[in-house]
């Protein structure tokens, strides 16, 4: 029974348990991505510095990863740092990088134990050496795990990803002696960071903003979007379950008329 995976963390009679009981286990989203927004606002509401919000956000990351792994999602992708975030004050960028390092140091064993495959997406080449070393260690250690793939988007931009992918796809075509007309969606899709991941079914954004913010532009073409007012540091298992239940109530048509995938 799938619920058994939650037996040690979910108490009887709680809202978590009620939500878990109503989830349709055969129609789980294959891939959930989250835009983790609201750390700054959370801190401002408490009169604390922004870093305090990021700090509190780490707890939400742990909750989301743990819940995703127990649910048995194929993939969970977290938007941690965009190509635009470099514009933030240097000490904030610095703190975010150190948080990432500490997160991996502290959580890698647990991630590995849960059979999670860790990877990053984005132009990680421009991150600091000690952060990259930590990322590589985690990626290598978990490379052969067969459970959920946890992708952390770092120095990630959706347009940059498409441009990088298009460039590589075209280079491949040139190498094969073909012309531009031979470029297909599949060929471009195979060059994206997410090539090995299942289709993005659900895109969650916290903190109530109605924007996609350059995240997974290509992959989100037919994703269901779920926006919650909850600020990221307050996001817990119950919020992820609510998002998934909301997703399961929707009719997904992928542009056609017939109900697909979710219609059972």
């Amino acid at each position, binding site marked *: 029974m799938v619920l058994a995976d939650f037996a040690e963390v979910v108490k009887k009679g709680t809202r978590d348990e009620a939500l878990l009981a109503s989830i349709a286990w055969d129609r789980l989203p294959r891939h959930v991505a989250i835009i983790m927004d609201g750390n700054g606002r959370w801190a401002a509401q408490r009169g604390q*510095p922004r*870093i*305090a919000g*990021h*700090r509190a956000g*780490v707890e939400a990351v742990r909750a989301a990863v743990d819940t995703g792994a127990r649910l048995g999602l194929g993939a969970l992708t977290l938007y941690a740092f965009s190509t635009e975030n470099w514009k933030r004050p240097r*000490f904030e960028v610095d*703190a975010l990088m*150190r*948080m*990432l*390092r*500490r997160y991996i*140091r*502290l959580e890698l*064993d647990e991630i590995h134990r849960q059979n999670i495959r860790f990877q990053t997406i984005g132009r990680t080449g421009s991150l600091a050496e*000690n952060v990259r070393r930590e990322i590589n260690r985690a990626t290598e250690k978990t490379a052969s795990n067969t459970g959920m793939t946890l992708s952390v988007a770092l120095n990630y931009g959706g347009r940059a990803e498409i441009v990088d992918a298009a460039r590589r796809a075209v280079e491949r075509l040139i190498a094969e002696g073909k012309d531009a007309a031979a470029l297909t969606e599949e060929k471009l899709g195979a060059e994206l960071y997410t090539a090995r991941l299942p289709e993005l079914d659900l895109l969650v954004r916290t903190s109530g903003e109605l924007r996609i913010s350059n995240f997974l532009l290509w992959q989100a073409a037919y994703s269901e979007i779920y926006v919650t007012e909850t600020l990221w540091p307050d996001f817990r298992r119950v919020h992820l379950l609510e998002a998934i239940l909301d997703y399961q109530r929707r009719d997904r048509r992928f542009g056609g008329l017939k109900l697909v995938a979710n219609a059972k």
Partner: protein
Amino acid sequence: MSRIITALIVLPILVASILVPWLSPLFVALALASMTLGIYEFWLLAKRRGLKPDVVVGFAGAAALFTIFYFDRPYETSLLLILFVIPALTIFALALTMLRGAPFENMIASVGATLLGVLYVALLGGHLVAVRMGFEQELSAHLLSFFFLIIMGSDTGAYYTGRMFGRHKLAPKISPGKTWEGAVGGMVASLLMAVAAHYWFFPELPLKFALPLAAAMNILGVLGDLTESALKRGAGAKDAAQILPGHGGLLDRLDSLLFSAPVIYYFGRLYFG
């Protein structure tokens, strides 16, 4: 006997103040109380040598340092402010002693005693407050549990192996009770504690770091212990003062952890990012 009773009362309070998230003020209060008394004992030793430490300036400096340690937070350290407090303290201690007027025969030693009391007890020991406040609850609990397990393990291991097998004196002129056999027993015990901590609650700290860290803490603990004995001996006192029944002075309790406190703090900062 009174030694065991004191330990039975203090130890659970210490453990709770480390493990229970909302009891962090209790940990700070314990540290504040013991270090205030520790500094005072240090100055009492200085007074036995005829020096006149400036207790007011010294306590003000210690309070400033303590405040800085208290406001340390993960990813935003406050410890750079120490660079502001130490010069200010130096200036005040010197200038106020000068303004008080002659005689100046012992001025160097007296101002030195004021500053050293602050540096030795508040600056070194205060790092434990920074470990409690400057890391996330879970990590700080793990680091402090590790710290006290090593310290207590090496003290206890040294005491009992020394009593059973002790033959060769370690430092007869400073602390006649200490033996090489006890020192080895303390080292072995602290390494065993590091292994125990790793498998018991701290898997995030790999053994290749936990063991050297424990070894360094053990050596610093012995050095700290001997150093405090030498200070007492120089001042012609047996115990720094009698505050905890059976435990000698508070400085005698703090001596083995003061040198290691900065080590665990900076290790945590560097290793865990």
